[in-house]
């Protein structure tokens, strides 16, 4: 069922957060921590993960939709692991540590929130299609 290795998965999820491939050590740590090990993945979860891995553009939509409707899913868990790993890498710490911003940045914050809500609506439709028709 799972035709992606842990390392390939790490590349896809890492790219989702970084807009570029994560470095080798990050991929290695993802494989080592292995978020699959405590999983009991349902058939629907499997379909969604396979779709996300084959179509990385969809991850933002699926993540946003699941955050709204059912946040404790297997895809979100794996993304969460990658998030924590990236946060604990010195190369990427500047993406996570608070930094000084002026008040105009608030517009970008509102835009980011609105973007996530838009993605959630599209994602909910996508989730319905995937769970009904598989990952083709």
């Amino acid at each position, binding site marked *: 069922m799972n035709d992606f290795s842990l390392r390939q998965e790490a590349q896809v999820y890492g790219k989702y957060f970084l807009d570029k491939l994560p470095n080798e050590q990050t991929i290695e740590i993802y494989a*080592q*921590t292995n978020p699959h090990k405590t999983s009991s993945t349902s058939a629907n979860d499997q379909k969604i993960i396979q779709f996300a891995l084959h179509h990385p553009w969809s991850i933002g939509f699926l993540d946003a939709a699941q955050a709204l409707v059912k946040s*404790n899913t297997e895809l*979100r868990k794996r993304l*969460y692991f990658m998030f924590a*790993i990236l946060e604990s890498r010195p190369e990427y710490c500047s993406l996570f*540590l608070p930094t000084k911003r002026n*008040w105009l940045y608030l517009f*970008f914050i509102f835009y980011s929130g609105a973007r996530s809500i838009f993605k959630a609506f599209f994602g909910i439709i996508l989730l319905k299609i995937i769970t009904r028709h598989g990952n083709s």
Partner: protein
Amino acid sequence: MEILDYVVIGSGCTGAMAAQTLVESGVHVTLLDAGADESKYSSIIPDKDYLSIRKTEQEQYRYLIGDAGEGIAWGGIKTGEHLTPSRKHILKWVDDLLPIESQTFFPMESLAYGGLGCAWGLGCCQFSDVELQAVGLNKSAMQTAYNTIAKRIGICGAQDDASPYTIGELKDFQTAPVMDRNHSLLYQNYQQKKKSFSKHGFYMGRPALALLTQSQENRKAYAYKDMDFYSDNDESAYRPWITINKLKKENNFQYINGLLFIKFKEQTDHIDIHCLEIETNTPKIFHCKKLILATGVLGSARIVLRSFEEQHKTLPILTNAYSYIPCVQPAMFGKEAEKHKLGFAQLSIFHDENGDNMDVAMGSIYSYQSLMLFRIIKEAPLNFADARIIMRYLMSGILIMGLHHPENKSATKYVELIHDMNAITGDKLKINYVLDDLEKNKISAREKKFKSRLRALGAYAIKSINPGSGSSIHYAGSLPMDTSGNLFTTLPNGKLAGTKNIFIADGSGFNYLPAKSLTWSLMANAHLTALNSLKNE
């Protein structure tokens, strides 16, 4: 047959204090302990501040999230799951050796070297005279004991509006640590509105903490490295193992670990102590003249029920209702991370509705930085990528308030020991804990009042998170104190009723559980119990 003089069970805050009192009096003391230890991560954490570590250390993921990701908690979170990798040993062996069955109560126990004290938030509060009376403790003896314990562990604090609830009558304490920007702003706002606060029965001030702000003996002054959830490198924060390490150098003290205490049997001239060697699962028996239990309230309940072999006996249990409330202080949004910072509570807020220092609720306020974004990001109903942008911006303005409520006994809160053939000990503790509607309503109303006060200071609550009963990690009252001498009670001198030489040094005897940080009072009571055990009464 070797008969030991004094045996203390457990190396947590109460065990450490009882042992120190006995050792200082000159008697021979043996401390028996499970003693789960941690060296894998603590030995690799560099002696640097959090931000420097984040920016430079390649190995940081090991102690921040764990080699196997054990610091990343996902899904239904059990009490204690949020512990960082270097604190996870606190839970070692607990599921196997201290099994609990409950749908309503989610406690945390520990078999670690230093017990739950390894993750103690360091909050210190003196109970007021009326609270001490309700608990069942002697006022003047406790006042002396508070001073003794403060000298041993080192307490910092301040004289301010909150000091009647925190530092109390303590005269000799170190100065409070410097607040970060987030708390400074909140406190400034409070100073301007304190009249209105006191009119509503609210008082804010610096918490008393078991933290050194000036070096003392081998312990260094706090250096604001913000690594408090990961490391005890400079020993500025008090941990019970600091005391045990010191006692190990004394000739009249011995420490034996790797043991789970099962039960006692009092004979005519000695006490049999039945243990289990944890590594081999083999029984081991010690003998002593006097026994001091410091196994924690649930531990003592288990042991006493087992030892008295009473079937179907239920014991009461007290715990503080607890919730934590993440808040945002918009004036602090978009500020850069602070290099010198304190991970412990920096402000305390008390609600004393009747103005009599009784039935007080307590909020402890923390900033959020070193526990990292990933722990809070899952609370946002957004995709992780966008949530990162937003939460990173908000982070410098995030405050977390942990809110504790006082607790009285009731018939719907009890523990009992039941058979369990799958358990190593052959039994497990079954806990039933149900709050009645009156209690629930009172807690909810109070929570709303706290949120409203924070709003008045410019901090807005995002949500209330209730991790479930027992998650406060404050427990008491399973062997309530009285003078009747009935089985399953504690006498006012700490002796277990129905025994000649067995004493209870933990909070099992407390008849009431104030919401204030309770460890200082537990340690003071343990000291008094140890003193009482030295008398032949």
